[in-house]
């Protein structure tokens, strides 16, 4: 099938610079979650309740969700120079499925996200993280699905905005409230009612809840179904829109 073959080709082509230079490709984006774990997580141990008792168990799923959010929603940034230089236009003038140009890129970002989140998990386990292996695997899967959606949206945004100074401004203003209202840093149960209500509207907060339940191996928790559903919905909607955009861009 040409779409699968082309997606694979674009995936390989996108992955190559990362393989050339794994430290800058993978390492730098790991710095943020590692700093959170090293310099912020210890603060939580002084907090009352479950969060204080097992602060790593509570915090790590959220940090991974944050990694997934930043890792994929800024993905379009890498497309901007290619749009400006005309490198992207060159691919449009090759016999490659237009949709594959999008999917191959998203798959690359997802592969990197998988490597990064696994690395974080392996790094934290010796410090006393207790996870259900099956639950963690399911949790990572949910994050990857959400990442497919966010990455796709990011590339669509890059293609419509095109300008290198507008793109990060838009992303900053959308990701910041998403993070603050997600309950990644502190439990939203501490919030006043209006703030708590806002956080329930934030799709990310449901994914974070699902992650926490899954990492604890609590598959029966209602948040698991809700969070996975939200992640899946984001991916499906984004892929539908992205496919349409690419088809329209050139056929």
């Amino acid at each position: 099938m040409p779409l699968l073959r082309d997606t694979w080709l674009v995936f390989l082509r996108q992955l190559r610079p990362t393989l050339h230079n794994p430290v800058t490709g993978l390492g730098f984006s790991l710095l943020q979650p590692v700093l959170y774990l090293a310099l912020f997580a210890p603060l939580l141990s002084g907090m009352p309740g479950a969060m204080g008792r097992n602060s790593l168990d509570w915090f790590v799923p959220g940090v991974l969700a944050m990694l997934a959010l930043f890792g994929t929603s800024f993905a379009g940034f890498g497309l901007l120079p290619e749009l400006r230089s005309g490198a992207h236009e060159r691919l449009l003038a090759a016999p490659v499925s237009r949709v594959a140009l999008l999917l191959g890129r998203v798959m690359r970002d997802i592969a990197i996200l998988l490597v990064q989140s696994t690395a974080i998990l392996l790094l934290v386990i010796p410090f006393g993280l207790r996870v259900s292996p099956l639950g963690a695997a399911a949790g990572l899967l949910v994050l990857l699905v959400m990442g497919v959606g966010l990455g796709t949206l990011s590339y669509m945004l890059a293609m419509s905005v095109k300008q290198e100074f507008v793109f990060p401004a838009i992303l900053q203003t959308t990701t910041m409230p998403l993070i603050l209202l997600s309950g990644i840093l502190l439990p939203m149960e501490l919030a006043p009612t209006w703030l708590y209500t806002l956080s329930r509207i934030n799709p990310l907060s449901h994914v974070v809840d699902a992650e926490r339940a899954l990492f604890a191996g609590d598959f029966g928790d209602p948040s698991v179904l809700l969070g996975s559903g939200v992640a899946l919905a984001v991916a499906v909607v984004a892929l539908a829109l992205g496919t349409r955009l690419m088809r329209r861009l050139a056929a």
Partner: protein
Amino acid sequence: MDRPVIDAADLRVRYRGAESDAVAGMTFTVASGEVFGFLGPSGAGKSTVQRVLTRLLRGYGGSASVFGRPLHAWGAEYYERIGVGFELPAAFGKLTAAENLAAVARLYRRPALPVGELLDLVDLGAVADRRVDGFSKGMRMRLNLARALIHRPDLLFLDEPTGGQDPVHAAALREVIRDQARRGATVFLTTHDMATADRLCDRVAFVVGGRIAAVDSPRAFKLRYGRPGVRVEYRIGGRLDSAELPLDRLAADSRLADLLARGAVETVHTREASLDDVFATVTRSRL
């Protein structure tokens, strides 16, 4: 006569927000195996026409067929048959020259030319394993050309293929493009380099303000617009002077013989019309 490879009729393009048409009704055909040149001032609409014919710009008026099929009826298989050399060189900067071509080759179902051979052809063999980030403009342009040739396309679109080249490299690239025509490919090229247009093109179109002002062979243009003759520089009484003597009256004109007899002549040059003169005349009258 064969059906033309490119058949464009009343092509029109207006960019969004523009006050006037960038391409304002162009009609032309390009025959199979022909090297067809687009010449004209900056902003005349040359690259825009290439963007239409390579299906990167879909919003156009008029009609255009390539290989006997309307442009809009072509799908991805169109790109198996055409090779595109873009105006601005862009490559995957973090990859080497060889990796760049290999990555491109994989996109085609047609058998690709060996990467090493292609790089030698454009004189990049010695830097095959260097990252393109460190290439000069001329090197990037040559990689750009190699990229367009990799799948032996039937039709080549080349925007400024000799851009940024020294005279030796420019001549070598003209030879590469000539070879493409020899193996049967059709070439549609845009250039500001009159030497390239003159030596390479079977026919050239002068484009001004989105319209085609004239189409003919370089030779016919030079004959029509040129005033062949000789230019004589001579010195009389220590003062340097010059005269232009038309070829058709040279035999009847005694001035040259007189000057020669007086030993006053310092240089004699034949003064053929160059394509530069034609360019200046054609584009000035239409601007």
